């Protein structure tokens, strides 16, 4: 079986533009959930960050998909063939 036709880069840019538009729309709706600066004490804590340990997460992102053999488990896309 042949793989399907690859997407073009133009299509990729179109999708990114779409998500940008959706993001702006969602952010416009978020006014009701505004958190003031004085209420952000907990949000500044390390365990509330999107990536609490960037270095460790980066090493895992480089290692785990290659060892596990997963094609889609990480954002890592280059920097080695995993072989």
């Amino acid at each position, binding site marked *: 079986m042949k793989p399907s036709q690859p997407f073009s880069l133009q299509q*990729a840019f179109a999708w990114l533009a779409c998500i940008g538009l959706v993001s702006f729309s969602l952010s416009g709706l*978020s006014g009701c*959930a*505004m958190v003031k600066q004085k209420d952000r004490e*907990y949000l500044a804590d390390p365990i*509330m960050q999107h990536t609490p340990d960037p270095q460790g997460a980066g090493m895992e992102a480089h290692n785990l998909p290659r*060892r596990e053999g997963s*094609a889609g488990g990480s954002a890592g896309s*280059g920097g*080695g063939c995993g072989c």
Partner: protein
Amino acid sequence: MLKSHGRRALAACLAAVTLMLPSTLRAAEGDQGLDFKYMYYWDKNQVWNHTPALSFFRKLASSWKLQYDQELDYVSGASRRLGLRNVGTLGDHDQVLDGISGASRREIRHSEQVTGAYSQAGRAASASFYFSDENDYTSYSPSVSGSLDFNQRNTTLGGSAAVFFDNMHPTGPFTGLGGNRRIISLGASLSQTLSPLTLAGVTLNVIHSSGFLGHPYTPVVTDSGDDILENLPDRKTAWALSGQLIQGFRLGDRLGSFHLDTRWYQDDWKLHSGTADLQWYQYLREGTYVRIRARGYRQTAAAFARPAYDGNELYRTGDIRYYAFSSVLLGLKVGSTFPDSWAASAWLPDRWDLSYDQGIRSTRGEENGVTPMFHTQLFPADEHYQEGTFMLGLSFDL
């Protein structure tokens, strides 16, 4: 085996870091920091990987930061297919090229990355250059990223772009069977603060790869039992949509948080995958936390994956990355601070963390008529495959 130009690059990088250290120790506190990580990976076939790494940053001005990352990999089998149990002798003899894969069974790999970052009043931008070198693989990658906060910093929009210029140059019996590949990775993200204890985010990545996308190390088995070379399409476009929810809470007077990360991936080779990663962080006392983690992953097979080929197919592979499987990973992490008295010395670390993740990979049975190819990478005994990763971290506020 480390090549001469690789050794020179590595020596230059280590010298640069060494030269940086004395001056860094005289700078004002908080303007720079150094993080060391040591990772040890093992699997049930005695493949192991020692990975020391460092990350150094220095603020150049109030809005600018320079960061240098260095990683070394000392690997035994380059991947699971080289499990020493399967390829022969342990000991000194395993430092030579492996006749099955062409890769050396023990080698040192290294990667470096330099990043310049700017951040001011809710606007951030960064530019990086990455380089990595292996016995049979070289990669260069410039990348940029940027983000913008608005809605009184409750909303963050971000974007990123990276290009990888990779070259595979196999050695030994596979000399000449490599090639160039180019990977373009684009990302867009939105992060939203929903409450004083709730954050949510979504990220879309598009990854377009072209060129020589396979490698010659996993021969394909034909119906007649012969081994022939893998042949993959020379283009692939992949999409990944990730979502993250962070919910903080108070347990007694200690802060805790749940992190739920999900990721959906698909590419035009018809491979789909889903990932769910749940992590619970909990402070036990000031500065000391524990993290408990559970991650599940599942993927389907690529359109051209077969248990065996007749040799006339346009595309064929024996690489386990293109067959269906699922995995579960459980992890525990502890992090804390060293005594305050250590802070007076720049040579003593300020924080540490320790983690261990245990993974079990399960090869799934027949799916859509595709059974896994038990050959050079997987053996029936490997249907449930165990692997573990230990990580130690030390952080210095210089």
